[in-house]
């Protein structure tokens, strides 16, 4: 009830103020623009291939009802036939030649008749084509793609957290010559678009021999200026006295980092983890140039390769897209509160 009260709050006491109307209109338009394509995608991913191509399109996955009839191996499609007298009758179609179709009564296979195709209408039912999803796991090397994506995302995120936090720790808690310069250098790399360094990165990866190796995608992406900046700003808020206390407590610099600074930076680390998962999972360009053999493809690359030149299996493509969206959505849903709190507190000071 409270949630509803909150959602339905208005500026006007009794009636809607004109700003309320405007706000709601704006929000609904925004919601529609952002969410409708996603909903359409999810709904369509449950359609059979023929239902996707159907015109006019339907939002929900309708497909023609079928019925099994004695004497026929495959289930037959069901139609409603309008008889000459105006009566309507549900019949299954055995075959169709030209404009004439042979229809039978589903219950009585002997009762057949010839019907003009204009006199019958297909019977639709709501049917989710789960096999779009289940086929994926068997039909293609989907499992490999999924594993590749998960491996790259998880390992790259862990390494990103580790290395960025170490850099941030040094930049925020140690005083050394050139500290500012180093920090500025790191930050300034934010201004270099990734496309510009794509060729050099490729050359380096090639020279190191990491082409067609998942590590070739992981390693170049580990050090991120955004991550260093975010964590440094957060670590600046950790009081120096804590670190001095730990130092007096006989803690080595590594232990100070591992036992004191890291746990206290958890909110900022969560933010960076979310970002990193999104970046790595959705990354397309780097995997595209590094991984050329299909057994090393990530989901994003696989999605791309699904669009053949001559033939695209839309139902599988859509199902795969939904699966690709899921992890990021889940991660975001669970950790989004850290994004707001983390960014807010990382901005202070």
């Amino acid at each position, binding site marked *: 009830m409270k949630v509803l009260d909150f959602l339905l709050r208005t500026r006007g006491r009794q009636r809607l103020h004109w700003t309320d109307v405007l706000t709601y209109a704006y929000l609904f338009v925004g919601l529609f623009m952002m969410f409708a394509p996603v909903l359409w995608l999810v709904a369509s991913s449950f359609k059979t291939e023929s239902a996707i191509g159907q015109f006019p399109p339907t939002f929900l996955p309708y497909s023609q009802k079928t019925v099994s009839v004695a004497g026929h191996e495959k289930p037959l499609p069901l139609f409603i036939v309008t008889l000459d007298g105006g009566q309507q009758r549900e019949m299954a179609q055995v075959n169709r030649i030209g404009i004439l179709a042979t229809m039978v009564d589903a219950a009585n296979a002997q009762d057949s008749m010839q019907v003009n195709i204009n006199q019958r209408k297909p019977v639709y039912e709501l049917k989710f084509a789960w096999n779009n999803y289940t086929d994926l796991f068997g039909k293609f090397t989907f499992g490999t793609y999924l594993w590749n994506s998960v491996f790259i995302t998880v390992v790259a995120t862990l390494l990103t957290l580790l290395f960025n936090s170490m850099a941030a720790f040094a930049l925020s808690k140690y005083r050394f010559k050139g500290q500012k310069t180093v920090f500025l250098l790191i930050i300034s790399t934010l201004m270099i678009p990734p496309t510009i360094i794509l060729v050099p990165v490729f050359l380096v990866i090639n020279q190191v021999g990491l082409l067609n190796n998942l590590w070739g995608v992981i390693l170049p992406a580990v050090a991120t200026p955004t991550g260093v900046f975010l964590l440094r700003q957060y670590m600046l808020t950790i*009081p120096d*006295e*804590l670190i*001095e*206390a*730990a*130092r*007096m*407590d*006989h*803690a*080595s610099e590594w*232990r100070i980092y591992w*036992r*004191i600074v890291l*746990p*206290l930076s958890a909110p900022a680390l969560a933010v960076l983890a979310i970002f990193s998962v999104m970046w790595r999972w959705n990354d397309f360009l780097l995997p595209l140039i590094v991984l050329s053999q299909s057994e090393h493809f990530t989901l994003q690359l696989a999605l791309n390769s699904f669009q053949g030149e001559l033939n695209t299996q839309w139902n599988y493509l859509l199902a795969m897209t939904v699966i690709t969206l899921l992890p990021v959505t889940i991660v975001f849903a669970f950790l989004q509160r850290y994004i707001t709190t983390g960014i807010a507190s990382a901005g202070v000071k």
Partner: protein
Amino acid sequence: MSTLELRSIEKSFDQTQVIHGIDLEVKKGEFVVFVGPSGCGKSTLLRMIAGLDEPTAGDLLIEGLRVNNIGAADRGCAMVFQSYALYPHMTVFANMAFGLENARVPRPEIERKVQEAANLLQLNELLQRKPTQLSGGQRQRVAIGRAIVRNPKIFLFDEPLSNLDAELRVSMRGELRELHQRLAATMIYVTHDQVEAMTMADKIVVLRAGRIEQVGTPQALYDTPDNVFVAGFIGSPRMNFVPSSTASQDAAVRAALPPDAKQVGIRPEHWLASSEGLGLAISVLGSEYLGAQRLVLGRLSDGTRIEMLMEGATEPKAGEIVYMTPHPQRWHAFDATDRRIHRSHA
């Protein structure tokens, strides 16, 4: 035997020198308080002893060993910070055990030591709590407990009571004294509060602008301050300073006043009633009732403001003239360089 020795310690931050050559000896088991106004370098001095800052020049010796190049962890000091600096993500137990874990003390011994310290500080009930769930006084005790478990040669306290409310501060003062006696440990305590210094210290080190003004027992500082600064800093309410020309209006002072005296210092509690012609004429400006006593505010003939502590019964009216004379043994004369002139009777 001295536990700690400072030999002409100096400290500069960039171009500014904050400590100007300090020599000091601290004996084993002593409770030494560094006191001085803010910015006098007392915290810097403590941090240098702890090993958190490095002296620019001079030698620092702990138990006869030069420790300038030894890191904070290996000097055998434990520090209680002003903000307590408890690790917020660890329980009280983990906070106290952290130092021992780092020193690779076996687990059963860690438990025993933490338990002992917890008993001593009445923290048993709180061992599984996080610092945020504790009150100020409890946090303070955890911070002290964290220092105790490591059994340090020297305890260092950096204004540990300044975050507590007045009542708690007084009781913690007593607890700290008691702890000092029980552990028989060497303690160095930094504060800007001279009352804290007076009530707790075996030995007070008064600092000003990076120099030691005077070292001595609380009583020595109170009775025989070396100079105007110490005289004014120690004791509350503050000592009154009267130019000697005005002070010599008093017959007794005039008779005993050293020739090179520039000003005379009289503590508010050291005034005696006198009579016209003998004592100093003070016009009363007002008074504050303190219960047992009354703090009377007055003005001398030359406009110098004077504070006097009087027995509470009679209330001098504002505008009234009272005649007072300094207690013959308790007033001090200071020369032109603000140093105290030794008077034969004192």
